[in-house]
């Protein structure tokens, strides 16, 4: 963080732009998207309200903190490879994280 402050003059945080809640589907436990912010990384990446994210970068997302922890470990511009259940079918999406406060 200190290094980052020296180089950029501020601390940047990676941001996805979703609201989630844990759910169980036949494929397992995951996080359902209840909100996708306009103009956010999530929207640009094609995520939809109702998508159930099962895993991100290979990490199962059985609790909401797991997703937040993963995002916090990355920088803006970092990539999340998501395993999603949409309409009962398994799909994969890659989302490039944005920056908190930026749109």
């Amino acid at each position: 963080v200190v290094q980052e402050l020296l180089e950029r003059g501020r601390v940047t945080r990676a941001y996805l732009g979703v609201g989630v809640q844990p759910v169980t589907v036949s494929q397992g436990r995951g996080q359902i998207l209840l909100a996708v912010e306009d103009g956010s990384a999530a929207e640009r990446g094609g995520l939809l309200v109702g998508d159930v994210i099962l895993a991100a970068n290979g990490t199962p997302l059985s609790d909401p903190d797991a997703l937040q922890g993963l995002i916090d470990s990355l920088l803006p511009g970092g990539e999340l490879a998501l395993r999603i259940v949409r309409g009962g079918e398994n799909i994969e999406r890659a989302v490039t994280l944005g920056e908190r406060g930026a749109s």
Partner: protein
Amino acid sequence: MIPGFGELGERLRRSTVHVGAGAEGSGSGVIWDASGLVITNAHVARRPQVELSLWDGRRYPGRVDWRDDARDLAAVRFQAPGLTVAAIGDSSKVAPGELVVAVGNPLGFVGALTTGIVHAVGPVGGMTRREYIQANVRLAPGNSGGPLADALGRVIGINTMVVLHGGVPGGLGLAIPSNAVRRFLARRGTRPTVGVSVRPVRVRFRRREAPGLVVVDIGRGSPAERASLMVGDILVAAGGKTFETMDDLSVAVENASGPLRIQFLRGDRTVLRETTVFLEKEAAAA
């Protein structure tokens, strides 16, 4: 003092539980029967899962089985050995002037006993249309959901709120009569249900933003499951009416006289889908 009052108090104390709903509050409850049914206020059991603590310190998870927010009652189920079940009285026999006892966990005091006298039984003038047992018992927030008993220790009401009323110091305690609790329990299982849990969302469809209800849980073997609804589906209309508020699904269910047509979006939302749900009476204590 009435002979044996201490024993009565002890039995009441043992049939009273502390109900914890995390940060959303806490209160008391009454062990209503030996199967592990606890009656409390709906405003105490705010979450589907609560923690019940017995008089002896044992703690158990409880599941809210049935609630009526309008009447402020909730039925919670849990399993524990050696329960002391409350004796339930007939609230229609309660008369003004009668000695009553309240047990609860006010301000963190576990199993605190307070006594009072019944002032009236019926609606509170200018305040409620529903019937309450009104007594000058000193109640604190932790009493909510706990028992009000007669001098023989029979539970005649569920302590629910305090109102400031005509010259009664500390206010008047209001309890939901035990017979109203019996009616609440008898109603259980008579309301039709779809069998889904939903959350309100905003959804864009056909270039317009609309309110929807996203399905986050489907009851096993429920009408919704048989109608092939899935977690993630976004319900947008029922019975031909587009949703405008999050209550609209339950209103449509209550008003339905037969199978209910539900329109919803799924997946990438290119089409508006429709399914017919054959509503069922709510299963009691599944």
